[in-house]
């Protein structure tokens, strides 16, 4: 009797295995030096994985209407009603604000670089343009987290010069289904 019951339970347990989507959470900050793109342009966020570029978000910047324009909002280029975060600043009440958070369906385990380009509005080519505005090499900053400081790209036509100032930071929270025990 007991064996029969246990068999049923084991069979039920076996049925419970299933495949899950493996999304990644992307968190970003942009320093106040990051400005709105010129007219006719927007920004695009990419990560390079296994030698290819994966587009995560096309966005633009605009003054935050709720805060009398004291800081910039980061809005989805394709749907400008969606605010995904803000550039670092201080809101109308004196509170420091800033940060962008989005979830992407892709498992970005193995991502090597995160970079942002300037793209022409209406451009349907999914590949990144060569107009890179900031870039960072992703390294492990903890369990299941990759992080980087975003810097302006090194210009090949400039030798020497002052140190590059950070334009932002990024963190990728990778999917993890390993923690599954008592």
């Amino acid at each position, binding site marked *: 009797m007991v064996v029969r019951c246990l068999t049923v339970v084991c069979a039920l347990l076996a049925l419970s295995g299933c495949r899950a989507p493996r999304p990644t959470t992307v968190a970003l900050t942009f320093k106040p030096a990051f400005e709105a793109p010129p007219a006719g342009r927007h920004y695009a966020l990419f990560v390079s994985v296994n030698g290819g570029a994966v587009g995560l978000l096309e966005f633009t910047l605009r003054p935050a209407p709720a805060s009398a324009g004291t800081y910039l909002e980061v809005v989805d280029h394709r749907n400008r009603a969606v605010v995904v975060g803000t550039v670092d600043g201080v809101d109308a009440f004196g509170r*420091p604000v800033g940060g962008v958070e989005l979830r992407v369906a892709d498992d970005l385990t193995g991502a090597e670089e995160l970079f942002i380009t300037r793209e022409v509005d209406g451009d349907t080519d999914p590949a990144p343009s060569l107009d890179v505005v900031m870039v960072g090499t992703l390294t492990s900053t903890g369990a299941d987290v990759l992080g980087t400081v975003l810097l302006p790209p090194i210009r090949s036509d400039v030798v020497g010069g002052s140190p590059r100032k950070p334009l932002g930071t990024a963190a990728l929270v990778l999917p993890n289904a390993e923690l599954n025990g008592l």
Partner: protein
Amino acid sequence: MPIRQSVLALALLVTGAPIASAGDDDGPPEPDARVMEFQLRDRDVVEAAAKHRTKIQQVPAIVTVITAQEIRDGGFRTISDVLSVVPGFDSDRWEYNGWYKNDLTRGMPRTALVLLDGVNIVEPTRNLAVLDRRIPIESVKRVEVTSGPGSVLWGGNALLGVVNILTWDGASNPGFHARVGGGHGPGEPGAVHAHLSYGGRFQRDVVKLWVGATYHTALAPTLTVDLPKVFGPLPAPAADGPAILGTREATSGGEGRSHTFNVNGKLEMGPVTLGLSTGFVRDVRGLGVGGALLATNHGAGETGNTDLASIGTEQMHLLYLRYASRFLGQTVGVAAQAHVVNWKQSQDPFGIFPRSDLLPAGGKTILESDGVVRAGGSVDVDVVLPWQNHLLLGGEVFADLSGVLHLTSFDPRAGAETKSGGCLPPFQFHPERDALRPCSLREAALGETRRIIGGLYLVNEWRLSNRFALSGGVRAQLSSTYKATLLASAGLVAGLTDAIFLKVNFGQGFRPPDLLSTSPTRGIASAVAFQGNPDLQVERSHSVEGELNARLLENAGPVKQWSLRADYSFTRLAGLIGFPGGHYDNSGDRDLHTVELMTKLVFKGGHELWLAYTFLDVIDAELGRLGNIPNHVLSAGGKASFFDGRFLVSAVVTVRGAMRDVNRGLPASAALPVLGLKLPDGLAWSEVTNVEVTSVPTTTQLRIGLEGRGLWNHLDVSAWVYNVLDQRPRDPDWFGDGRIMLRSQPKPGLSFAFEVGTRW
């Protein structure tokens, strides 16, 4: 003991339960054996969960019954405690650092319909029923828990389960009963508890009365925060931003005394029952909703501020009138009910952040509700039809009416020195609200809202034989605020033997959007903002379940009974309401796989062992596999009975598996400048990209109790130690907006409680 036995014997007579047992064949059973028979039978009967009295093995649903005797034996203090040992339920999950507690059903918060004596007590503003001390456990006769969707029978909110709480009546708990006790420990310091009840029958048993009053008070628990928050972003849609944390561990506790007072009563006059439940809660918490220790002062100097805690007051008042009788030779039963429930709450002060150089007056708001009222009625009819059919049909209609939820926000930049005309827009000068924070803004976070909900259902059970039954049902649900919903259910119960039953069910459930999520109120300028979406649709569940329910042994050697139930369910939740970016919306599907097991071994002599286990795997279409719920929860307990049941030793242990929590920590360099601002020593910035994935380790909650019952015939004495291992578990964030927040939420440690009771 004789009095208790007479009470139980009385109950047996009243309920009409036959006292058939193996012992009957051998002459009159021993009194203790008779009590045990009653207890066993009491557990095997379903009174409310199926809307008619039936046996637990034959009801086409997964039902767990917990009786008052089991509640007492297990040292359960609240309904949440009770649910913590029901497979599939994970109770006492803190939300917003102890603002209120959630009960998770199959991993999902607020997905069970909670009925108190048949009345829905899920408050519609947040779809929330808090099951802590505000429902006094002494007033509870039994709890019947249905696992799985139950909306065809019960309507809204039965998305993943139904919790039926049944209170005492004058027949089942007669006489005066008094209990007085107290307790102490970091988990619940300075606790005092008192209960007095009376039950009786009059007018040749036509009139029955039970009334009970309960009071409980305790100081705020000791809570240790590893990195105390001084300042941080508010939940979305407020803009995200860096947080400022203390760099050393800090502890809160004892900030003030919480009080809970309840009166419950039931007056029965023939077929008519008038029921009442009224409760008042004053809740004092040392942590802000975001995890800040409110009593600390980070360099702001003494400002004379006395708001060192959050203080909430909540009330719930319930009144119902029910008529229930049977006609036509007991073949037709009718139950008609009218009810009104009123909820009211305020949070004053609703502390958010402590005082600091950055926020000299601290972060503070006031939440005040004008109240929420639910009023309506229901009719249920059951008809015994030819060919072994049993038809249940009925319906209900009720209105949810919510007054304004006022949110008053205080400008953290304005201190006592600010004069009239010195407030920055949109704040206004109102020193009468708080002289230390004279600039404030009072807005309607939730405007007046009303909705009317109605439903009609029909369920038929066709019992082909004693061992085989088929059931099916449909419900049409209508509302003034969401689209009409049609639901269906089907079930099969097959007895493999007289003691082993197999059940297969298909069930559907739905949960209406809470009023907060649908309110069109917009433009809250100052602090926490709500942007309701009036176009939200109901959340739906579709579940397939299979259960094996067996009595493996009965009266074999020292074993009185060994029962086992095991079930697997697959549930798809559709249209779950999320809060991405601070905007409520119906989101994608979520799949739930659960395996639940419960087994109980009852020995002759009153000894018991039981074990409950839940495996849970939840996969969200957008978020992936959820990590902030445990995949495994194991509960076990038992009692040993000595000296003819006068002395008991009991223990309950719950092991909750590991979880993961995504949060923000301190940067590697505590001096990282943000926006050019410099912080005092002992504080550090936390950037929004300084993300950690931490493991919330496995926790073991153990409680041990000693009880003496019927001492000197009248006296009951008990002593319990809760959280014996003093484990201070942490809950991962469960904020509805999905934003990466700060740190997991600390919870209380060890406490002990004692109680003396008498009955006459």
